[in-house]
């Protein structure tokens, strides 16, 4: 929405055409054109409907994309492995996922820190020990934590899909900064993003046989990140329907009592 407004305002400025000559104005015009040409595409997210719940097959595919691709750079610090029961993994599967990483624990009785395989109660193992290490490995850019990504940006999962499918060649008018990539889904910093295109067709092999195209993987990982940011949505919708039905009955009773009590007033 913000992007559309920004695009419209810039387009109006363009029409008014006050003879923009400086390089800065040209860049602003160029960015406005990109924004106007690439409005955020809205998908139907089935979990958002009143009776909506997460599709666990999509969640598992999305988790696979996160684990095999995103987690190389992006942490998910708010999640523990045990939370993965929410995407339908069994206890043994969760133990296996957790055990695939080495966690520093301690100190032990000798006062030494030691490495051990992860447990379900451990937090997701971060790819970098600290922000400085993350920046040092990523050309100075910090890959943001993804735990709340689906709620922390305007557009939510649509925004995530927009970025993951938004890579391409920059238009001629856009002056790219050193080491940056053009992405028409990334409106925050003039459509230039430090992250190189993370997905390519067949980047993962889905166990359920789904074709791993870029749009499919983008959809699945956005789906998984929506769950990660709002893991209690299924319960919320279920309790919500019951609560509202109860309240409607209760309110109807209140109304009947009200009419009965007031019948002698006028």
């Amino acid at each position, binding site marked *: 929405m913000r992007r559309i407004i920004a695009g419209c305002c810039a387009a109006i400025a363009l029409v008014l055409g006050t003879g923009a000559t400086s390089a800065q104005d040209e860049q602003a015009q160029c960015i406005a054109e990109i924004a106007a040409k690439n409005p955020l595409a809205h998908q139907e997210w089935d979990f958002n409907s009143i009776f909506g719940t997460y599709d666990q097959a999509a969640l598992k595919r999305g988790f696979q994309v996160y684990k095999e691709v995103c987690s190389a750079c992006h942490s998910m610090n708010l999640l523990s492995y045990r939370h993965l029961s929410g995407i339908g993994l069994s206890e043994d599967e969760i133990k296996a996922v957790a055990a695939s990483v080495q966690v520093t624990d301690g100190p032990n009785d000798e006062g030494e820190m030691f490495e051990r395989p992860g447990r379900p109660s451990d937090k997701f193992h971060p790819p970098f020990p600290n922000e400085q290490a993350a920046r040092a490995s990523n050309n100075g850019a910090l890959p943001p934590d993804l735990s709340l990504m689906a709620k922390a940006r305007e557009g939510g999962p649509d925004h995530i899909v927009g970025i993951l499918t938004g890579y391409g060649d920059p238009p001629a008018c856009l002056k790219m900064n050193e080491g940056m990539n053009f992405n028409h889904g990334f409106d925050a910093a003039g459509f230039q993003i430090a992250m190189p295109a993370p997905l390519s067709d067949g980047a993962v092999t889905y166990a359920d046989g789904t074709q791993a195209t870029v749009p499919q993987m983008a959809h699945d990982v956005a789906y998984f990140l929506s769950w990660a940011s709002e893991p209690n949505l299924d319960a*919320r919708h279920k309790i919500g329907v019951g609560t509202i039905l109860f*309240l409607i009955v209760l309110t109807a009773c209140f109304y009947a009592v009200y009419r009965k009590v007031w019948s002698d007033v006028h």
Partner: protein
Amino acid sequence: MSDAPRFKNPIVRWVDHRLPIFTFMHHQQVYPTPKNLNYWWNFGSLAGIMLVVMIVTGIVLAMHYTANATMAFDSVERIMRDVNYGWLIRYIHMNGASMFFIVVYIHIFRGLYYGSYKAPRELLWLLGIVILLLMMATAFMGYVLPWGQMSFWGATVITNLFSAIPLVGQSIVTWLWGGFSVDNPTLNRFFSLHYLLPFVIFAVVFLHLWALHHHKSNNPLGIDIKGPQDTIPFHPYYTVKDNFGIGVFFIVFAALVFFAPNFFGEADNNIPANPLQTPPHIVPEWYFLPYYAILRATPDNFIGGWLTSWLGFIAVPAKLAGVILMFGSLLVLALQPWFDRSPVRSARFRPVYKWFFWIILLDAVVLGYCGAKPPEGAYVVIARLAAAWYFFHFVILMPLLSVFERPDPLPHSISEPVLKGSGFALAPAKPMEKA
């Protein structure tokens, strides 16, 4: 009815003789209330319910929350993920704040429409404004507690307003912060005050009700109670009506909590506070937007230019002018009982005021809309006009109206139009007649 009742239960009688709490409760029940109150009178009890909901959910949240700059954000997320039904309690509290303000704003505009602020209810009105101020302080500090980006930068912007005070402003801001920027000490004191103020509100609500019960409720006709034929006991008549209102209100509230809990939320507040990175667009919660628009509407040296021409030496910077106008907007609202001199309370019998009421309501909505938009282009102009109208309405128009408006004739008593069915008052009440 108002004499001390005789209680059958000997224990009740024993206690009541020493501490007349049962007599007090009895008087609350038989408290005579105008028989013609419409549904707009439900919002007082709804506000009371919301205060209780907020205090109860807030106390539970405080059991799990950690007021520390390095842990606050994660502790809130722990409530959302790991505390049993923590997500439910937090979403009720979060959206409850919005519902509380919706209810209170409707309650205030009802008071404006039916002239509930006029004699002898001026103190009742002033206590209401005090409650509003306390609510605003409480809500603002509560919004800071999750320590997201909008929490942090909202706190920075709002506390910085006090720096506009001449001479001592900067010292006051440092004192409020407990340091030289919004940081851990700020978070700690905000948590402490956020826990305290609701109980202060509770006390002022008690005074508000005391003042209300002393002169009884106003009513849609805005005329005084003439005798017992004009009233019905609060219980059971208005308790059952309030119950119905609460039921309808809770359906709306539940729809928000369960199906759109982040509707009023800002995406930026899901990013942990970062003092080194200012969000591009800092907006307060929706219920502060009209004041925010007024705050930003002042041009440079607006009052300054005006004052200097009179006094020659006082220059008021735009920021200070904005702050003065923002707090002034509540002050002129508080002073309505004295600005509005019309002896007629209800807008039903004030043919001109009736129109200006809807205009000032629209004006408040326009101000809120402008407050949500960046302060540039047409929004600034609209916000300035709307802010000017706001003050014009309350300070100039209302006193003038009370002189020049010719009110319609008032009915003789509350029960007269209700009983005889003479047109206006009966029409909205008609569906209730058949049981």
